[in-house]
C-alpha cells in the first residue's frame, strides 16, 4: 500500500517536471516559460521530498521556486519586446541545439546506465535531514558557514555596484 503511494506520487511528480520542462522550451510566450520553470522547480522539490531530503526540498522551493524564478520573471519583465506572444521563438541554431542536447542526454544516460547503484535498504540517515544539516553547519563546518555569510554580503555589494555603478574613489 505504502509502496504504491510512493510510486504513484513519483510518476505524478515526474510527469509535472517533464511536461513543464518541455513547456519551457516549446511555449512561445517567454513569461509562460518562466512560470513553467517555477513549476519545474516545485516538481523537483517534490521528488526531493520523496527521497526524504526535506531540507533540500525546502531550499529548492525557497531559493529556486521563490527567488530564482522571480529573478527570471523580473528579467523578462524589464526587457521590452514588440510582441510578447512571440518572445520565445525557435532560433536559427536549432540543429546545433539538437546536437548539443542529444550529446548531453547521451552522456548522462551513459553515466547513469554504467553506474551500479548499491541498493541501500536502510532508512536515510540524519545527515540529509534538517537536524543533520544544522549539526554539520553549526558544529563541524562553522568556518564555511560564516564564509557563506561573507559571500552573500559580497554578492549583495556586487549587485549594488552593477545596478548603481561604482563610486569614484
Amino acid at each position, binding site marked *: 500500500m505504502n509502496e504504491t503511494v510512493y510510486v504513484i506520487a513519483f510518476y505524478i511528480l515526474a510527469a509535472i517536471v517533464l511536461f513543464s520542462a518541455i513547456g519551457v522550451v516549446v511555449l512561445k510566450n517567454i513569461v509562460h516559460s518562466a512560470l513553467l520553470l517555477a513549476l519545474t522547480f516545485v516538481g523537483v522539490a517534490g521528488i526531493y521530498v520523496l527521497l526524504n531530503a526535506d531540507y533540500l526540498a525546502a531550499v529548492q522551493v525557497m531559493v529556486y521556486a521563490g527567488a530564482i524564478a522571480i529573478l527570471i520573471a523580473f528579467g523578462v*519583465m524589464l526587457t521590452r519586446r514588440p510582441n*510578447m506572444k512571440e518572445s520565445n521563438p525557435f532560433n536559427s541554431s536549432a540543429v546545433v541545439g539538437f546536437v548539443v542536447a542529444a550529446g548531453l542526454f547521451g552522456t548522462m544516460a551513459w553515466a547513469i546506465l554504467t553506474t551500479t547503484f548499491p541498493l541501500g535498504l536502510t532508512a536515510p540517515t540524519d545527515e540529509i535531514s534538517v537536524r543533520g544539516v544544522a549539526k554539520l*553547519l553549526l558544529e563541524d563546518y*562553522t568556518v564555511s*558557514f*560564516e564564509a557563506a555569510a561573507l559571500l552573500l554580503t559580497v554578492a*549583495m555589494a556586487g549587485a549594488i555596484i552593477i545596478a548603481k555603478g561604482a563610486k569614484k574613489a
Partner: protein
Amino acid sequence: MLKDYLGIGIFLAVGLVMPLIILAVSALLQKISIRYAKTEGPAKYETYECGIETKGDTWVQFKTSYFLYALVFVVFDVEAIFLFPWAVTFQELGTPAFIKMFIFITILVVGFWHAWKEGALEWK
C-alpha cells in the same frame, strides 16, 4: 512521513483542480447566456477590470528599480535558508550555535547597512 505530506498533496490537488472547475463554470455560464440574451458588441469582449476601461498593452516594461530589490531579496532569501536549520535545532545546540548565528547575521547586517547607505533601498 507520508502523513506529513498528505496536507501538501491535498493542497496541490485542490490547486490543480480548482482553476479547471472555475473555467468550466465560466464556460457553462457563457453557453447559458448565449442561449438567452443576444447582446453583442465590442464591450462584450473587453477585459473586465473593476469597471475601468483598460488602456494599452498588458505586457508593459517595468522600471529597472525593481531589479535591485529582487537582487537584495535573493540574498536575504538565501540567508533565510541558513536560518532555517538553526531555528529547528535551536534547543539542542544551545549557546555556541546562537553565537555563531549571531556572527552570521552581523556579517549580513553589514551588507544590509551597505545597501542602505548606497541608496539601494531608495525609490527613484
